[in-house]
């Protein structure tokens, strides 16, 4: 079909130019994607969250020192940290605030989760089977009650693995705090716990049972203004 004297074929000059451009684009994309990966590697500034609530009314309460596995940050490894794990089989909260400051690319930002109806003493947040890994917690006097209170037969010095909170078919579950077995792990067991005007530093909270969070708000704002900077949630 080709006209005589005309040779058809791949014109290598042009082809090479296009191939070169395509390769450059791919290289650029690879660089861009790599930067994206680097950008996603956040700087881990604070490992603990702030907790605040006007009151906690819990039944079958226990505290125990447990070894919590914690991420060490950028490397993706883990280490072990001793925390006081507080367990509540059933609980009501009068307002809740959990906040976390995190530094991303050198900029501080604060995630804040709040809930509550704004009325003191209504205990509008109800849930069951809650665990909090506490670094420190402080209860203070207020018009609604004062500090940390425990009711019933309180025992200090139990093994953390012997602390009881939740029940299945009326029988206490074994080791609800998931504490290490054996000695060395301090525990407190009480029938009831009433905690008022609580501010604390926690690593995490796990709430198992179905629960409600009226007026739930999740916000992320630049800066470090967390639960400590705001009045107790009601």
């Amino acid at each position, binding site marked *: 079909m080709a006209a005589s004297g005309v040779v058809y074929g791949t014109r290598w000059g042009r082809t090479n130019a296009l191939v070169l451009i395509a390769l450059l684009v791919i290289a650029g994309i690879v660089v861009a994607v790599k930067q994206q990966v680097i*950008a*996603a*590697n*956040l700087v*881990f500034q604070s*490992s603990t*969250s702030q907790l605040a609530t006007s009151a906690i009314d819990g039944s079958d309460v226990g505290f125990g020192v447990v070894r919590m596995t*914690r*991420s*060490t*940050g*950028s*490397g*993706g*490894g*883990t280490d072990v940290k001793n925390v006081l794990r507080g367990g509540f089989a059933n609980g009501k909260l009068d307002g809740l605030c*959990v906040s*976390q400051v*995190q530094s*991303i*690319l050198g*900029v501080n*930002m604060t*995630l804040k*989760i709040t*809930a509550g109806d704004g009325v003191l003493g209504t205990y509008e947040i109800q849930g069951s089977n809650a665990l909090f*890994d506490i670094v420190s917690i402080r209860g203070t006097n207020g018009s609604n009650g004062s500090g940390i209170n425990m009711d019933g037969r309180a025992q200090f010095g139990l093994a953390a693995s012997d602390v009881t909170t939740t029940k299945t078919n009326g029988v206490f579950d074994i080791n609800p705090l998931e504490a290490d077995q054996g000695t060395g792990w301090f525990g407190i067991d009480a029938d009831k716990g009433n905690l008022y005007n609580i501010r604390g530093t*926690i*690593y*995490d*909270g*796990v*709430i*198992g*049972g*179905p*629960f*409600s*969070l*009226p*007026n*739930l*708000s*999740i*916000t*992320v*704002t*630049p800066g470090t203004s967390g639960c400590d900077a705001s009045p107790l949630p009601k």
Partner: protein
Amino acid sequence: MFDLKGRVRSTYTDAREQLSARKDGMFEKADTKVLGTRRRSVGLMVAGVAALGTMFTMVSSNVMAVNFASSNNSYKIYTDRVIGQYAAGFINAQQKQNGTTPVAQIGFKQADLFGMCVIAQQDIVGLGTVSMVMTGGEPVNGTVTDPTKKISANELYIASNSLKGSGENISRMTLGQSADTLAMDTITSHRGAPGAFGLQAQLMQIGNLDADSYGIDLQGSINLPDLNIRVVPGVATKTSCTS
């Protein structure tokens, strides 16, 4: 000797001549021939719009699902109730065209939305701000009125810096889980940095949700019964969802 200078010059002169010839050709063509959009365009246009209309109807009558992915910087999302199965969230810096903004990246493996209203703003040169209001499912008025018009979304991700609603039923929630260990049931791709704050829940039922979003990303598909898209001049508010 390799006469580079001469070769460049001759190439340049050739190109100039070619361009000039092409220009002359263009002028000649423009003067001699009448070229333009012929009437047959209307046929294709009508066919295309009809096809679009058919797809729109199919989507709004729940036959077809669509994809949605955007990191636009001005979204408002309203729904009367969202029932999310396997939710996970962490803090991130959302990339925008002009820098970054801190957001909570929240993902749902499966989410049922009772009414959905998305308001997107776009600045258009010469027109100012216009708002696009997309509604689907039942009317978004704060109460669930018609559960049959449920919107089901698979793998829904929202980048939000403010999310407000009423947590009606939440279970198995973990706050403070290391963000690199988050999982939405079997999906383990929605993860943050090691050691960073993470939130995970098996069920999150949130009523009357108002979210400011910097992006919606739907990895799966969504059905949008009663789909309606309107363009409203200026900044639209939640009242625009029902009016």
